[in-house]
């Protein structure tokens, strides 16, 4: 399967099943596209047949010379032989086998506070309460959660724990005590905890910063961008904006971590479809690790992204990608989470095609110790899997999540981006289609665009290296 597109003056050919990326001239672009239409299952043998060359002559005889067409066809045959063009998707049985392997729990999202000191309008946690009551996790419940993780992690050494909410700094002492408890277990069980804190920054102070820099592998700082954008969507409960209080603290924290191992993370909505301006606002503030993600809202929410917004969103991603190339070239580069792509490495096929791990490797824990497949399912009783005292009491829920991969989703089979999103977010699928085996279509459109932009950036930077 070939996906080809033009972006920022580059002709790009992605061999979907190998992940090989080729930047080509116009004739190669036309020839490869035409060969894909002729037979998307081409092999070196079918490409080498006389009728393939004749087909190209019929298509392009009056446009390109015979010599050029032969040259390109030979190059295509060579790449196909090398497994970098017309590669087959031979992974379905393999993924089936991978999914049957016994999984271990390797990550927990600890909802240490179902309460929040902000009242963000789009919050899926409904001001931290997740359709339920306000609550803080006790140290005892948190300890049992870490014990559960250790006991169910098999031989996996690195264990990830995200302190999440609501706002976790509203339960700060418990966070610190749980980190200490986790560290005390590491040697005993030959484990290593990687802690993450996701915070809105309202309660961030020097003491928190010092602790976070010592203990947290990653910290996610929530802020939406320009002051007017942030304050409209992220006000305090009394309606006052949060930008002025929070930004200086986030800048200080990011610098104190040498601009590493953190993300400044925003959400864009229908009310700031010009979100590339917000990303650039972060860059101007000096942030080097940026993530700005589309909101997920009901169709009835005025801020929700609609299908009709996609053309503008695509233009924004294009603008952002071009600007990032320019900034990189002038030594002012920054990382945008959704454009991160490692063409030479990155995850293996098993990881890329088997889904995000929610419900099996990754679970969310409520303040009172209930277990859910992920933070987004919290509060939906249909997905209550168990609790930290009894463990998983409904393994059938884990089995359903285990059975979910790109091959269980019809829409993913023909999608070139399936190796980059792993079939998309199961919670979003359930939200819009009442099943985890579907996809949230607007999100898919955006993901495809982001993958295209990310590859273009690689092409542009490689172009510079070659000059």
């Amino acid at each position, binding site marked *: 399967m070939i996906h080809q597109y033009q972006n920022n003056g580059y002709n790009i050919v992605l061999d979907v099943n*190998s992940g090989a990326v080729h930047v080509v001239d116009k004739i190669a672009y036309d020839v490869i596209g035409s060969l894909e239409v002729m037979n998307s299952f081409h092999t070196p043998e079918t490409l080498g047949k006389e009728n393939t060359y004749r087909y190209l002559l019929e298509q392009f005889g009056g446009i390109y010379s015979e010599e050029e067409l032969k040259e390109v066809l030979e190059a295509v045959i*060579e790449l196909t032989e090398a497994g970098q063009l017309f590669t087959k998707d031979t992974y379905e049985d393999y993924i089936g086998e991978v999914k049957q392997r016994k999984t271990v729990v390797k990550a927990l999202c600890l909802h240490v506070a179902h309460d929040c000191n902000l009242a963000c309008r789009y919050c899926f946690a409904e001001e931290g309460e997740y359709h339920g009551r306000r609550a803080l996790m006790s140290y005892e419940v948190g300890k049992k959660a870490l014990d559960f993780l250790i006991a169910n992690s098999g031989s996996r050494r690195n264990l990830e724990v995200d302190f999440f909410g609501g706002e976790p700094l509203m339960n700060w002492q418990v966070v610190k005590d749980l980190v200490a408890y986790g560290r005390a277990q590491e040697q005993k069980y030959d484990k290593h905890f990687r802690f993450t804190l996701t915070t809105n920054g309202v309660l961030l102070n020097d003491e928190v910063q010092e602790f976070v820099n010592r203990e947290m592998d990653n910290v996610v700082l929530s802020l939406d961008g320009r002051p007017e954008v942030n304050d409209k969507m992220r006000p305090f409960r009394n309606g006052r904006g949060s930008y002025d209080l929070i930004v200086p603290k986030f800048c200080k924290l990011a610098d104190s971590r040498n601009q590493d191992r953190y993300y400044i993370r925003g959400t864009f909505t229908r009310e700031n479809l010009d979100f590339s301006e917000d990303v650039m606002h972060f860059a101007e503030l000096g942030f080097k690790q940026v993530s700005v993600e589309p909101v997920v809202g009901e169709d009835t929410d005025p801020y929700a992204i609609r299908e009709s917004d996609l053309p503008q969103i695509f233009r924004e991603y294009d603008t952002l990608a071009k600007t990032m190339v320019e900034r990189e070239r002038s030594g002012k580069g920054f990382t945008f989470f959704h454009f991160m792509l490692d063409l030479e490495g990155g*995850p293996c096929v098993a990881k890329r095609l088997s889904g*995000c791990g*929610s419900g099996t*490797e990754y679970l969310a824990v409520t303040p009172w110790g209930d277990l859910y497949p992920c933070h987004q399912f919290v509060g939906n009783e249909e997905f209550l899997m168990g609790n930290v005292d009894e463990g998983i009491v409904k393994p059938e829920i884990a089995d359903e999540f285990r059975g979910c991969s790109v091959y269980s989703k019809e829409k993913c089979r023909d999608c070139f981006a399936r190796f980059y999103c792993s079939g998309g977010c199961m919670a*979003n699928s359930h939200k819009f289609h009442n099943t985890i085996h579907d996809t949230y279509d607007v999100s898919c459109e955006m993901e495809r665009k982001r993958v295209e932009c990310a590859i273009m950036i690689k092409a542009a930077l490689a172009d510079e290296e070659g000059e």
Partner: protein
Amino acid sequence: MKHIKTLNTQTLNHTVKKGGCGECQTSCQSACKTSCTVGNQTCENRK
């Protein structure tokens, strides 16, 4: 090649043999909590 410049030599098919160890980070643990981004994760075996 005159007409084609290939950006990456290491392709996905090579990861089938040694992949699937499961030591990598779960996708929502990095920054995203509302989408699914796996392609940008790091392989623990390559560190």
